């Protein structure tokens, strides 16, 4: 992931619009990726991205360069996405059915690569649905964003053993789900 240069951060904190747009261009794709996987759908993720960057803009003057800007933005993203997920859980129901996920797609059926990509996205969403928000965030930060245990612990402000335990429990749950699903499909 590309780091944001310090002078860009300083200019953006001083109110420079172009510098803030640079920060958005460098970081919005991973904010969006985390938001989609944590919040569960594209519409909510776009709301999360908006909230995240409004918060980043409002609080950038507080950023003290003790951590990386990306770590700070990940933290805001995760908190915003989890809060959004919890707030909208009742509206969406506790479990999002497989049909709902398919509804969100709208891919061109004639493109094979696109189909594979959509199929893979669907698999990922089905897997993530089986996890609680804490486990989901850890899996997203590790598997998709490729953060180290130390970086995840910094983003979530938990110790490394907690990160390790959440990942282990999440994978145990996913292996169980995959095995049960395969058994069911075979029957």
């Amino acid at each position, binding site marked *: 992931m590309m780091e944001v240069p310090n002078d860009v951060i300083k200019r953006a*904190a001083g109110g420079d*619009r172009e510098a803030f747009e640079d920060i958005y261009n460098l970081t*919005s794709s991973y904010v969006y990726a985390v938001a989609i996987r944590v919040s569960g759908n594209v519409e909510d993720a776009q709301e999360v991205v908006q909230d995240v960057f409004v918060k980043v803009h409002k609080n950038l003057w507080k950023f003290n360069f003790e951590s990386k800007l990306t770590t700070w933005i990940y933290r805001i993203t995760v908190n915003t996405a989890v809060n959004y997920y919890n707030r909208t859980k009742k509206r969406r129901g506790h479990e999002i059915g497989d049909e709902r996920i398919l509804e969100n797609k709208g891919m061109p059926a004639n493109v094979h690569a696109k189909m594979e990509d959509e199929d893979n996205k669907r698999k990922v969403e089905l897997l993530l649905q089986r996890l609680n928000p804490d486990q989901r965030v850890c899996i997203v930060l590790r598997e998709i964003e490729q953060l180290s245990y130390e970086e995840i612990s910094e983003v979530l402000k938990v110790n490394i053993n907690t990160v*390790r335990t959440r*990942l282990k429990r999440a994978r145990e749950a996913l*292996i169980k789900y995959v095995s049960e699903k395969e058994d069911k499909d075979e029957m």
Partner: protein
Amino acid sequence: MKCDEVREILLSDYIDEEAAPEIRDRINDHVKGCNGCREMYDVLCEKVSAPFKNLEPTTPPFEVWKKIEEKIYTGREVGAVGFLTRLKSPFVYRKTVLALASVMLVVFFGTQYVKVRDSNLTKEYVTEQFEYLTSLGNNGNGGGFGTSIEEYFF
């Protein structure tokens, strides 16, 4: 190593490449000779981890940036990120402090100059008055006004 211990590590540090080399070697040795652990690790890699690794990078649609701009620069947040917020920025803050310090220095040296100038004027005035009063006494008759008090003292 027992299977339970091996699986704990396979599910976290091993697959995430956080395990120390000597631990990895021990796990590798175990997995080579243990079908159960090997099968579990294969499922973990192929069915659980691979879908995440194969995801295409995504970027938010352009409208999202437009909405953010609206909220920040034309919406209610304008006031919040306006002058006061910008003033709070460490960089703007530093500039403001420097400007204030410069103004205070100018004011300080200005008042010192006025004080020195005023004290010189006062000295000049006192000297002039003294010389004037002295000259009054030197009017050719040996000084004084010829009063009885002067005659008594001098």
